[in-house]
């Protein structure tokens, strides 16, 4: 996996998703895995401040240096592994392993931006069996 320019933040934050909900536009709640794991919210943001996504957006300027993929899961039955797969123009750039813990869990990953990252991106959020729970699309511009 090529992640030389990534700062991989698999800082898992056990925050209450219900507190975050009113702040954020809900990005199409993802599919449920095995009727137990529920992806409640997924979005791109400029940063994480106080365990919450700050400035949700779909366009990142390289001057902002950072892009964050933030996910909230409900009904986590047990300790699970999920992945944030980052693609730049359909080319895999990073596969970040994140751990979820019951009963609810929020977690995020981020990349550091530079000029070579300009262009369209997507993040595929998958479970351990590569089942795609959600796809987030954004662009990196000048």
């Amino acid at each position, binding site marked *: 996996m090529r992640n030389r320019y990534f700062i991989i933040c698999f800082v898992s934050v056990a925050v209450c998703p219900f507190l975050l909900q009113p702040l954020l*536009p809900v990005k199409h709640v993802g599919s449920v895995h095995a009727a137990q794991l529920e992806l409640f919210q997924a979005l791109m943001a400029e940063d994480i401040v106080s365990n919450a996504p700050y*400035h*949700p*957006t*779909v*366009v990142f*300027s390289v001057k902002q240096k950072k892009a964050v993929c933030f996910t909230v899961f409900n009904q986590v039955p047990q300790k699970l592994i999920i992945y944030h797969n980052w*693609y730049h123009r*359909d080319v895999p750039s990073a596969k970040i392993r994140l751990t979820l813990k019951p009963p609810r869990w929020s977690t995020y990953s981020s990349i550091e931006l530079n000029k070579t990252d300009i*262009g*369209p991106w*997507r993040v595929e959020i998958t479970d351990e069996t590569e089942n795609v729970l959600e*796809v987030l*699309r954004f*662009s990196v*511009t*000048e």
Partner: protein
Amino acid sequence: MENFLLFISTIRWQDIVDISVNSYILFRFYVLFRGTNVFRVLIGMTVLWFLQRIAVSLGLIVTSWVVQGIVAVGAIIIIVVFRNEIRRVLQAKNLKSILWGLSYKTATTPTEIIAETVFQMADRKCGALIVFPGKEDLSGVVQGGTPWKGLITREMIASIFWPDNPVHDGAAIVQGDQITVVGTILPLSERDDMPSHYGTRHRAALGLAEATDALVIVISEERGDVLVAKGNRLREIKQKQTLEKNIQEHLGTAAVDKGAARKESLEIASAAMLSILFITGIWFSVSRGQDTLVSLDIPVDYTNRTAGTEIIDTSVKSVSLVLSGSGALVKSITPDQVGVRLDLSKTSVGRNTFTITSDNISLPPGIVLREVTPSEVEVYIDETIQQELPVQIDWVGKLPDNLILLEAITDPSSVKIAGSKSIIEEIKTIYTEKVLLDELSGTGQLTAKLVLSPASLKMAPGYKDEVTIQYVIRERE
């Protein structure tokens, strides 16, 4: 011997037809114009044309220009000067006589009556001028005259030249079995070696004979002599039989003896043979000369692709052909006359290798393929499929610092694409054209074209190549 047989085997039926048709055209030209000045001038023009070719091959630039100019001007002069002869051949004769017949004669001239009457008039010292046109048109040479169009009889000839008849001083023109014109004025010969006892009538007879291929009979009013003018000769005829024979020979109706008939047949056969040899020679020099080589880059045309498949890649887009042929044919080749076609009807999905042979190459007649580079072509064929793919906006530029693009969705969110299976399987997203952020100042909507790359990809039926983008912009907190 083997080479000869090999050569014979390369002759096509079209070549035989080509030579035959042109030989016959040349032969018919000879038959229609033989004995006329047109034919002699045509021969002269042909000689000039050969001289010009020789001058060109020797590098005599000015000479070749001059001869070329003479030939070009000469062609126009022929048409203008000999328009009457050409018109006579093309209009006066029926189609059969132009294409097939060997004689122009349609009505037999009563030569015996004419000869008898001429000598009877000579005995009475009744002057006369009787013209028998040859193959040349007389209308540009003679002047005046009264149309007559009467069947030839002894009494009619005698009455025309009777001294009290107003037209007796002019000439009578005989065509077929009719006297067509009387009282015609003939051009006078300017020769100064004519006997002193010859008068104007003799000079007129010789004048027309010199200018045309006509035969003119003169009856001297003073001496009662009968003379015949033909070419530049004016000779006295003493006997009726001799005169009759002269007329018949001129008109081509003489009861020719076996030797003469054989001679004429031989002449026609020789002309036919020469026509064939001449055209065959030209055909060989033009179509079978192999002295010039040319190299052409020709695009390969891939045809008959199986339905549901697509060409992904080919090892070459064009091949280099080395062709040979005569200089004239090689110079006249245009790229659209040469084609390289590969039939893909029997190909399978994957890599297919073709060896280019002469069967794949179409060439103009007379041009021979010497070499093909490369001789092998690889064609990659793939199955054609349709696939639904998500659409993603390709944002570029920069929003003002105080704004943030919160959300953007496309309608439709996915589109169906048709194309090669191997290509489509590699594609995960269809991107829009670049959408500029700089011009956005608030929430809104816009349209953007989709970018299909590679160009072989197409939108599936029912799908448009553009999407609507709805975007939400907020001020930064």
